């Protein structure tokens, strides 16, 4: 129910009740009034009987004295009047006065009859009879007067009690009115109180909910247990709370993400710094190596000097080119330097053959792809053999591919070993490598050429291992 309906209901109820009471009181008042006036009219009508009967006798007397038609007319009128009164008095008969009233009515009849007899005797000019009948009429009128007094006395006796009862009833009505006033006041107060509660309670609830929202608690749902405008307001407010809550959460999420981003940026910067730091040392080392090479050359150790140059070159290459694509020529040059270093180590145990199709040296590949393979062959094919071994690097064209083949004649690999080589992550236990593992090479090649079949390995125990790189033939320099 809406507040408007509630107000309407309350006011209508009050008006209705007041109206009903007013009608009831008016009705009972009118009733009492009628009762009073009916009693009074009884007395008045009975009094009229006496007056009228006396008047009839007077007119009769006048007629005896002066029997003219005009007087007879007056007599008739008087008689009619008495008849009229008689009829009205007839209605006053009740259970208690039935006998007296009937007697009374018939006495009027007797009077009129006596009057008529007198009249006819007058017309017949029978003087004695006229006197006798007139006396009779006179006596009847006197009797009527007596009877009127008697009946009035009886009526007074009867209606005295009724008067008392009427007065008592009106007193009782007054008392009833007071009690009723109290009752209705209480009921209206209670209804109004409940009604005001039903309006203010949702408002209070809403205020409390609004306070909570104002304090930042968007989680508690707003629930109003009424069904009016306030409830509608509350529902709208609840929707608003939900929206704010969603927005708030979204903002929080964004803030969190931004924070994370910032943190990761900081970390990145830090790592860049670290990498810079780590770059400083190799350069220092590289310069030092060059200096050492010159020193060795000046000191006459030319072989040492060359070795140092190779080491420095390899170092520079590895520092500089790891993210870039290079030509096969550069890659082959690095391998030559690497082999030179390894030769210094293995001397006669290492035999290296280089079979290169010069036309293919412009082919681009990721840097440091061949070197790890050579290194691998070195570790597995040469180090393990006391008599040393041979490593052959062939670069040739086959159909639309450039093949770079590294072959060793070492002990070969067991199939499990071969599988591990192809699928395992970069091994860390081997301290000899240049840190770039076989897998790394494969991944880089796959990414670079955007194809899966970039490398094949064939190995047989006791025969050796051959690793072949399949490089697609390129006409142009790939974009970096």
């Amino acid at each position, binding site marked *: 129910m809406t507040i408007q309906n509630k107000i309407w209901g309350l006011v209508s109820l009050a008006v209705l009740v007041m109206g009903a009471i007013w009608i009831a009181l008016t009705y009972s008042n009118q009733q009492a009034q009628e009762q009073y006036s009916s009693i009074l009219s009884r007395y008045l009508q009975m009094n009229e009987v006496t007056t009228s009967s006396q008047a009839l006798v007077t007119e009769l007397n006048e007629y005896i004295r002066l029997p003219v038609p005009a007087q007879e007319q007056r007599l008739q009128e008087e008689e009619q009047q008495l008849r009229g009164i008689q009829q009205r008095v007839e209605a006053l008969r009740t259970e208690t006065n039935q006998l007296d009233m009937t007697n009374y009515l018939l006495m009027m009849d007797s009077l009129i009859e006596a009057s008529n007899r007198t009249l006819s005797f007058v017309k017949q000019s029978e003087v004695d009879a006229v006197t006798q009948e007139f006396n009779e009429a006179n006596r009847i009128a006197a009797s009527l007067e007596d009877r009127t007094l008697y009946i009035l006395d009886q009526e007074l006796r009867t209606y005295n009690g009724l008067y008392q*009862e009427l007065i008592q009833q009106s007193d009782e009505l007054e008392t009833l009115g007071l009690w009723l006033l109290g009752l209705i006041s209480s009921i209206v107060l*209670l209804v109004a109180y409940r009604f005001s509660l039903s309006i203010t309670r949702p408002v209070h609830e809403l205020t409390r909910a609004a306070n909570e929202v104002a304090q930042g608690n968007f989680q508690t749902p707003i629930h109003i247990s009424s069904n009016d405008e306030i409830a509608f307001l509350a529902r709208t407010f609840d929707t608003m709370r939900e929206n704010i809550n969603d927005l708030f959460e979204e903002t929080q999420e964004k803030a969190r993400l931004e924070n994370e981003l910032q943190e990761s940026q900081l970390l990145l910067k830090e790592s860049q710094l670290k990498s810079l730091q780590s770059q400083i040392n190799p350069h220092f080392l590289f310069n030092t190596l060059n200096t050492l090479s010159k020193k060795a050359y000046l000191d006459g150790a030319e072989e040492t000097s060359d070795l140092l140059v190779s080491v420095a070159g390899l170092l520079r290459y590895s520092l500089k080119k790891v993210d870039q694509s290079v030509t096969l020529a550069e890659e082959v040059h690095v391998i030559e330097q690497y082999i030179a270093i390894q030769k210094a180590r293995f001397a006669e145990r290492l035999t290296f053959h280089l079979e290169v199709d010069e036309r293919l040296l412009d082919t681009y590949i990721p840097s440091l792809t061949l070197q790890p393979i050579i290194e691998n062959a070195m570790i597995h094919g040469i180090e393990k053999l006391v008599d040393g071994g041979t490593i052959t690097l062939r670069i040739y064209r086959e159909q639309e591919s450039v093949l770079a083949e590294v072959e060793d004649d070492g002990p070969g690999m067991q199939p499990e070993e071969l599988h591990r080589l192809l699928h395992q992550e970069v091994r860390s236990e081997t301290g000899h490598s240049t840190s770039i593992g076989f897998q790394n090479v494969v991944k880089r090649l796959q990414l670079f050429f955007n194809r899966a079949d970039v490398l094949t390995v064939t190995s047989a125990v006791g025969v050796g291992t051959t690793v072949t790189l399949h490089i697609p033939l390129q006409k142009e320099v790939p974009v970096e």
Partner: protein
Amino acid sequence: MKRTVTRVLSVCIVFFAIFTVISVWRVIQATPHFPEPVADSVDQLRIVLITENQSTDFWKQVEEGAIQAGEKQGVLVEAWAGFGTEDQDFNRNLETAIYSKVDGILVQGQDTEAFKELTKIKAAFYGVPIITVGEDVPAEESLRKTYVGSNQIEAASLLAETMAEKMNYQGEIVVVGDEQPTYMQKQRLQGVEQTLEAYPEITFTYQGMGDTKEEIMNATMERLNQSPDATSWLVLDSKVAYFVTQEIKRRTQVDPYLIYSFDEAPEVRSLLQAGVIDGMIRQRPQEMGEQGLNLLVQWIRGETVPLNSDGYPTPFVLEEAGL
């Protein structure tokens, strides 16, 4: 707070509701009950009982009997009585009843000219039947339909017979009545006379008396002086019995006196109980009223026509002192 307010108001509502209900009930109780108006035509018979003196116990019983019988018969009965002994009231009531064209009148017979004229001429003119009750008037003088009451001659005979026996059939009896004896007294006197004719040894004297106390006492004194030997007194009317015995008591010992009276009036009864009076005739007034009314109704309705003009006697008994 909310609960307290609700509770207090609820208690108020209950409190006021209880008293309101009680008050409504009291208002309904206090509603005046107006006499119901009656329908136009009244076919109930209207009968009026007219007596001379309202305050007499005898007539009260007559009235009671008539009204009770009227209720049984379904007729309206009302008793009109004058106050005191004024004939005027009585006659006026009778006249009014006749003018009212009542269906029938039960009346205490009165041996007066006015009464006779009213009954004989006026009642006959208006066609109102009359039955005398308790006291009679001659039928030919009043045109009454009948008489209902004790047979006065027989009652007097019984009294006289009893007294004669007590007197051993000799001596003198003083009979006390009005100076102008009424028809009823005359009847009683007649009964006494008839009885005493058989006993020549007994003589009787009629002593008439006035209406007032002084007159009664003087007459009694005179009689006591004139007939000093007469110790037997027969009182025809109870209304003088008290003063007669008072006078005798004042003069001499009352014990040797033999006093008998008619009518059971309260003062006569106490005299009887005191042993002053030796006996009295007790009539049945209630039966008179009852029977009188029944006969009147029967006559009006044509059930018993004509009524026995000699009258319908009601029983009576002689009540004697010490019995």
